């Protein structure tokens, strides 16, 4: 296979190997609805591509041409589609293909076709490709740790080819780098609930709660760990309400009088599900309202809604709705 990246942009019309091909221009219909102005190099490459595609020429030069076309526009389904046919026909070295894909991903990592093609390649390489692939994805995530396509592909690799053993550590590492990374939190949940080595959600709950509580105390305004905490008690709201660690982290955050919106929200949810607060909770909530002239509602849940309505004014309607729901429940 040619080692050059894309023939250096030299016009195809001047290259000897393309002399026998008549380029085929794009038919855009009579008067294009969304007219396209084509860049010259792109236009020429696509004209040659259309000719080769129409002739169904599955040759080494066709493979090079698709590479050039992909460099100019990695979003084109048909080019990728044809490249797979050529790769199959030539029985090409797929490890080399993976390296090519990695280079494309480094500059253009948010492209559906690229990732789908990559999965096709890895599927054919089989189980031995798993470890290498997980490492390559790490490199892409090191450039953008929230890349949706890369995460989706990584989940597929884990499920199809394995490699779960180090995944929780990897999540840990990414969260140390950025505790606000929701993709890493999601992956953590994915690993905790699906890894064949960890024993499932219930077995992991206690240690995960400890980890999450720490993350919350470090950044109480981070919505990710609060949601993760709820997820750890999926389908078991009673256990959430009864776990003293949960109510206690709410109290600790509220007592700091800073960034307490999510803590109040969690406390409100606990109360709605039957949590019986001691006086300390009420005192802490009351302390948040020192500067407000209105007297605080004697009902703790109502008081929390009142506070949130003012502090989180963008979502005031949500908190008013929560409050109305409380009064309906009380009747």
């Amino acid at each position, binding site marked *: 296979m040619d080692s050059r990246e894309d023939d250096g942009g030299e016009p195809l019309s001047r290259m000897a190997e393309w002399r026998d091909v008549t380029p085929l221009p*794009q*038919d*855009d*219909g*009579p*008067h*294009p*609805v*969304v*007219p*396209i*102005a*084509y*860049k010259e190099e*792109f236009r020429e490459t*696509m004209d040659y591509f*259309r000719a080769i595609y129409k002739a169904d020429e599955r040759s080494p030069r066709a493979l090079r041409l698709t590479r050039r076309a992909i460099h*100019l*526009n990695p*979003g*084109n*389904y*048909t080019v990728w*589609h044809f490249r*797979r046919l050529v790769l199959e026909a030539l029985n090409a070295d797929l490890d080399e293909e993976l390296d090519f894909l990695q280079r494309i991903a480094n500059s253009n990592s948010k492209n*559906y076709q690229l990732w*789908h093609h990559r*999965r*096709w390649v890895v599927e054919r390489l089989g189980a031995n490709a798993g470890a290498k692939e997980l490492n390559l994805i790490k490199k892409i995530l090191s450039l953008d740790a*929230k890349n*949706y396509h890369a*995460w*989706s592909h990584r*989940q*597929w690799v884990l499920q199809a080819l394995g490699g779960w053993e180090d995944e929780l550590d990897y999540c840990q590492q990414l969260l140390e780098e950025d505790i*606000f*990374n*929701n*993709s890493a939190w*999601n*992956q953590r*949940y*994915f690993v905790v*609930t*699906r890894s064949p080595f960890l024993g499932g959600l219930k077995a992991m709950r206690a240690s995960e709660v400890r980890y999450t509580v720490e993350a919350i105390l470090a950044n109480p305004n981070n*919505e*990710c760990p609060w*949601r*993760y905490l*709820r*997820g750890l008690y*999926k389908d078991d709201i009673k256990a959430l309400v009864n776990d003293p660690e949960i109510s206690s982290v709410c109290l600790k955050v509220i007592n700091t009088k800073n960034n307490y919106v999510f803590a109040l929200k969690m406390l409100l949810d606990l109360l709605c599900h039957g949590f019986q607060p001691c006086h300390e909770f009420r005192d802490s909530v009351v302390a948040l309202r020192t500067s407000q002239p209105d007297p605080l509602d004697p009902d703790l849940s109502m008081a929390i809604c009142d506070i949130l309505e003012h502090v989180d*004014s*963008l*979502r*005031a*309607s*949500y908190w008013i*709705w929560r409050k109305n729901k409380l009064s309906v429940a009380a009747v």
Partner: protein
Amino acid sequence: MAELAVDKHVKYILAVEKNKDSFESVVMDHLRMNGAYWGLTALDLLGKLDSVNVDEVISWILKCQHESGGFSGNIGHDPHILYTLSAVQVLALFNKLDVLDIDKVATYITGLQNEDGSFSGDMWGEVDTRFSYIAICCLSILCCLDKINVEKAVSYILSCKNLDGGFGCTPGGESHAGQIFCCVGALALTGSLHYVDKDLLGWWLCERQVKSGGLNGRPEKLPDVCYSWWVLSSLIMIDRVHWIDKEKLVKFILDCQDVENGGISDRPDDAVDVYHTYFGVAGLSLLNYPGLKAIDPAYALPVDVVNRIFFSG
């Protein structure tokens, strides 16, 4: 507050020649069908669809149809479910669904459903809840949802539900506002919204509004006009749209306009494109902005077009 520069946006969408070196013009070639849907739907919402030559559009669309029944993004490209929905939506805009061999299109889409109820995007088998929505929306417009296994399609979508009430692209995938629109839309169109935890999802969705008034698509990401559509339409479908600050969102979208040359961008002061112009206008339509036609949050088509499909036969 600034106003929507209707005439400028119409002019922008209809603009004949673009900057020859623009990245957009290069990458749009293969997805012109999507571009046509974005541009034409925005024009219709702005009340200016009549400035387009219908026959030319229809004949071009039909040239993009393949033997399989599917449509490609442009003439001579491969068919994909993404372009098939756009083609059907544009035909619906022009009240020209009758030019279609409906069985043929339906057969193409039906053939993309997998054993587990999910849908592939094309013959190469990429699976994504986006394709579930597209298949269901397309078949619903063509009034032949009964041709797929709806129960399995719904159960696959539900397998992609997350702890935050949102949905991802495949089971275990992170919640993302775009995927949530697709899943909630597909559930709405199949009468399955009762499976959605509306209060939990509604809270996640309204948490997407940031101080500037704009909406992001995932926690800790930047706001983007396109989420005015994905988040807002989802909130409307689950009846929780009153939980966000609509006035601030309207202002954010209007701040993203190029008031001189027309078009809307992802964020204030960025370069405009057709995609964000459509999502900005559609978002404003969902927010009942005066002078715009109403858009249906599940079909992503003007309400009068949807009514014509279902109530004029």
